[in-house]
């Protein structure tokens, strides 16, 4: 078991540019069921992907892959033809919000948006558009979602993951990799790792992911990685206190960040004295979360939370 994505997830890609192509290739090599692409001016073409799989040499698995991905004019056509139940969006920022809304309109239940730099106004509108539709947005400005050895959607390096017991949720891409790698090395592994993204307006929240992991029988514990800015971690702390039945470990980045400066992520800013790392760490500790003092200690903090 896992959350959001698994072996039965069929994925289309929106935005088959250089980056989208590179990571589609990696996803296919990993074993993800990529079923189509959307590119209006190339509708009817196919795009060939071939190479050695990530699991070459594993008994019973293919050593090589060769796949001709069909290209469609619209998301609706792609879904009709392929039965896709997820979309990954690599569309450039000026057009990304429209791509998200198109996917939502086509009824794609899971829309994972990797694109960084989408204007906030566009995301506010897109989120409003999604409000009354039965779809889930993950991201934007996130690494994606992976259920190890089943489905990799996004830009995370596949080889650091291993199937296991811990749900991972994070606002930061590279810090997700740090956490995942440590969980792989200490033998805990991951059920699913979710990047929720570093933008001030995003789809799926910490609370949404904690709730999904709480209800997933395979997930025994959760590690959440937050950062300065906003109040999503404080809201997560409230949820953990009131509803979470599984142990949680955590890390918050930005203890040394100066106020009033945007730390790379559009959403990582301390403004008006709000959104500091200290406040978030205090809120999570008060909710019983085992906090890692540095990112190198995240795996150890998870072990400690599981022991306690």
């Amino acid at each position, binding site marked *: 078991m896992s959350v959001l994505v698994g072996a039965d997830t069929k994925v289309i890609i929106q935005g088959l540019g250089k*980056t989208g192509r590179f*990571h589609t290739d990696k996803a296919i090599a990993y074993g993800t069921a990529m079923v189509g692409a959307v590119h209006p001016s190339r509708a009817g073409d196919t795009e060939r992907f071939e190479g050695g799989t990530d699991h070459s040499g594993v008994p019973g698995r293919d050593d090589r892959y060769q796949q001709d991905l069909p290209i469609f004019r619209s998301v609706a056509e792609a879904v009709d033809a392929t039965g896709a139940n997820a979309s990954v969006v690599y569309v450039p*920022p*000026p057009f990304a919000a429209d791509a998200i809304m198109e996917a939502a309109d086509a009824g794609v239940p899971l829309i994972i948006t990797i694109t*960084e*730099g989408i*204007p*906030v*106004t*566009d*995301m*506010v*509108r897109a*989120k*409003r558009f999604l409000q009354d539709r039965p779809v889930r947005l993950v991201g934007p400005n996130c*690494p994606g979602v992976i259920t190890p050895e089943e489905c990799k959607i996004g*830009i*995370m*390096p596949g080889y*650091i993951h291993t199937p296991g017991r811990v749900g991972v949720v*994070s606002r*930061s*891409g*590279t*810090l997700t*990799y*740090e956490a995942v*790698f440590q969980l792989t090395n200490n033998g805990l592994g991951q059920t699913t790792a979710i990047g929720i993204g*570093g933008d001030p*307006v995003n789809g799926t929240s910490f609370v949404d992911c904690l709730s999904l992991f709480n209800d997933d029988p395979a997930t025994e514990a959760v590690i959440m*990685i937050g*950062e*300065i*800015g*906003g*109040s*999503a971690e404080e*809201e997560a702390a409230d949820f953990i206190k009131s509803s979470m039945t599984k142990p949680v470990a955590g*890390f918050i*980045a*930005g*203890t*040394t*960040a*100066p106020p009033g*400066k*945007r*730390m*790379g*992520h*559009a*959403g*990582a800013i301390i403004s*008006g*004295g709000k959104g500091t*790392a200290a406040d978030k760490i205090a809120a999570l500790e008060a909710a019983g979360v085992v906090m890692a003092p*540095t*990112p*190198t*200690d995240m795996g150890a903090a998870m072990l400690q939370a599981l022991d306690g």
Partner: protein
Amino acid sequence: MKIHEYQAKELLRARGIPVPLGHVATTVDEAVAAVRPLVEESGNPVVVVKSQIHAGGRGKGRFVEHPDLGGVTVVTEGIEGGIEATEARVRELAEAKLGSTLVTVQTGADGKQVNRLYLEQGIDIDRELYLSVVLDRSRSRNTVMASTEGGTEIEEVAAHTPEKIVRQSIDPAFGLLPFEATRVADALGLTGDAHRNGVTFLRTLASATVDLDADLVEVNPLVVTSVGKVMALDAKMSFEGNALYRHPDVEAMRDESEEDPAELLASEHGLSFIKLDGSIGCMVNGAGLAMATMDIIKYVGGEPANFLDVGGGADKDQVAAAFKIITRDANVKGIFVNIFGGIMRCDTIATGVVEAVKEVGLEVPLVVRLEGTNVELGKRIIDESGLNVVSASDMKDGAEKIVELTA
């Protein structure tokens, strides 16, 4: 991106939002020349001289060179002495203020040099209110914040008298609706003409915020005049970088003299860089990891010199530029490159670092930690470069090594 008060008012005026008449001046002569047209057009002999810097608290701020002068001065000499008396006083003030350093609660102790003055008509003020439109992150939509406590910092009002702040969430599908604006105007105690004008002001400001892709519009104070006009006496706007591409008029308002030169250079290369006061330069991919790298340097006893996120899609030229920006800082005694490759491939980072070092030389210790996509290729590029680079096995190991090497 921040802009000056006079620029914000220009943008608001263009959208039909009432602001006082004003002229900007960068020289003493321009300031003096602005007086006559301003007084004649407004019919008010009173003129206000306002320093233009990217920081608040100007009214209470003081000039280093002229401790008796604040950032904002009301010139009343013209009431009795006529336009010539106003011109004479404006000349004195412009000579004192232009080129001088203004220290406010927001500038830090060093203050900021004043390069522009804004001359504005005097306004007959009846009431001072507070109004802003900001993103409410927990609801993913804009919110109007208003208060009867004009002229006071909103954080202060929130801390001491939160009941005096009214909030109205804005549905992006509809904008600020008339009844919602009415509710805010009621809460501000507006009546008669002022109420009618206030509702229009509120709705126009809310839509201007969205149209301009501003991430903050703050009018403090919003004033009600003795004849029931509602006006932005001050205006502060900042813009989200991601949307500037569709607002060339706003982008043209960028005042580079207000920005840190290294941060400016970094932004020209599409890098996210923030200068800090420490001695260990960092180059990292990913904002979270870059923040955490600063944190861990501090945790093991060092002080980070900067935040630097080379981003997900950087090419080797950007990496080389990043490396050069770090080494420009004379405080930097060592560099820690910390990469966990996802979208960013380790070989790209490695190639960029090697090329930059070959071009600019390396006079301080360099610790590199690579993990993730194409990690073996990246390590090989570093190893085969023949450069004096210390490898780290993980982030803490790398932080400890660079702190030790620079101790």
